[in-house]
């Protein structure tokens, strides 16, 4: 057996070979076109304990995201900014390969790509959530978990993170300011809340290249066989706010070809979010 199948189960190997055969004929599992996303289901408020949450199904990929707020000290070089922490884990339930334990480079890369999309897009007005400059600000935690991994984690996790943030409720900053003296004794979950208004919605689209053919939303088997994987994150203005070449290389022309496809697809996902009540 070829070495490239090391650590793969037989079922996975069959899936991978099948994906390759189909792509060679410009086909995909379930009669999907090269530029079609799988079914997307977005449900918000799935975790009542969090300030915001969402569960996203992208085909058989399942992601849960939760948003939490805490009080903390700002970084010394940005005393007037709230703090954002985005951390994702691929749970060991997600696949045979997924392992328990501290995040590996794959999980760190995914988290950081989604972090950059949220951070650079202007989605969050960081200056709004400062209680006392240089002393106390709101720490925004976005945690997401991959429950089942059938590929294209980034697009799914980005949708979940964005939906959780856009539907979150935040403890009233004004209330915290007024009660700052008791702040050590305040349970932040019991503070009156208001809607967490996001100012932009970044959309991540991951594009694959297989033998020169461009395709979107690769599933787990396709991720193994494509030569190239690249993610573009777009704003509602059409601007790009983040790019990440995840795998392989591409020609100069392919950079712009994949960018164009990503842009088109970002409009599509944006529409799906809107249909779920999430828009600017």
């Amino acid at each position, binding site marked *: 057996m070829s070495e490239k199948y090391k650590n793969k189960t037989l079922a996975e190997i069959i899936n991978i070979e099948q994906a390759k055969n189909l792509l060679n004929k410009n086909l995909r599992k379930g009669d999907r076109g090269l530029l079609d996303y799988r079914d997307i289901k977005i449900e918000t408020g799935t*975790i*009542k304990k969090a300030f915001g*949450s969402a569960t996203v199904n992208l085909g058989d990929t399942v992601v849960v995201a939760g948003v939490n707020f805490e009080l903390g000290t700002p970084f010394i070089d940005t005393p007037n900014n709230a703090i954002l922490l985005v*951390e994702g884990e691929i749970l060991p*339930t997600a696949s045979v390969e997924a392992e328990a334990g501290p995040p590996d480079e794959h999980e760190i890369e995914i988290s950081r790509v989604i972090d950059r999309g949220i951070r650079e897009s202007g989605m969050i007005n960081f200056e709004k959530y400062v209680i006392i400059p240089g002393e106390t600000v709101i720490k925004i935690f976005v945690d997401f978990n991959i429950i089942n991994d059938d590929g294209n984690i980034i697009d799914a996790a980005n949708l979940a993170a964005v939906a959780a943030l856009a539907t979150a409720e935040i403890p009233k900053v004004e209330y915290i300011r007024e009660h700052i003296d008791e702040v050590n004794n305040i349970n932040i979950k019991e503070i009156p809340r208001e809607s967490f208004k996001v100012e932009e919605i970044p959309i991540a689209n991951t594009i694959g290249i297989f033998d020169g053919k461009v395709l979107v939303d690769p599933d787990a088997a396709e991720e193994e066989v494509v030569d190239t994987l690249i993610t573009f994150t777009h704003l509602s203005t059409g601007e790009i706010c983040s790019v990440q070449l995840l795998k392989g290389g591409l020609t100069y022309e392919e950079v712009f070809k994949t960018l164009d496809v990503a842009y088109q697809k970002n409009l599509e996902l944006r529409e799906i979010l809107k249909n779920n009540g999430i828009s600017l």
Partner: protein
Amino acid sequence: MSNNFKRIDGRTPDQLRPYKIRAGILKNADGSAEIKLGKNWIVVGVYGPKEHFPKFEALQDRAILFCRYHMAPYSTTERKSPKPSRREIELSKVIRSALEEAVILERFPEMSIDIYIEVLQAEGSTRVASITAASVALAEAGIPMKDMVVGCSAGKVNGKIVLDIGETEDKEGEADLPIAIMPNLKKVVLLQMDGKLTHEEFKEAFEMALKGALELYEEQKRALKDLIEKMKELEGESNE
């Protein structure tokens, strides 16, 4: 027991929270299940039996059962660090120990069976709910077991013995008694208690938890039956 006694969430003393178990919810796992019990939402994935790695750690006469109980960062009132806490390590151990009594490990020498329990939302009594779901996931994976394992808790809140302790009751109550049993073999395989109980109260709580476990055992069977029927349907469809 006065019948008009009401608990913080309106339940009677011997009433379980609303519950629902679903089997076969994860595509990649060999077996999986989900339990919702009140606001608890727990997902379990089972992988195996598969060759144990590294080989020198494998056992020649039976499989190794691995179990991880883990809480998502957003599952609790205060954000939980994703790093395993001492509590999670203890619970992983007692849950594994309970399931080891049921799984026929001797059937799979040199192998391992991995059970991953992910608490997505926690609202008290997660350890026993986890066992209940894990047992269903093992059954779906086709792992031979001497009996199902099903868990339930009881406790003492405001002087009263009550069933299926919720989060607030756990914090404000006087005692918590989680148990897990093999319902047909009539054996206790998980038993913990903390708080204060007289021997009489302990007995009352224990028996109440037993009753709760038996009710959840019916739900386990229902979930597995549901899955079998759904699979038959799918088979039927693909045969059409």
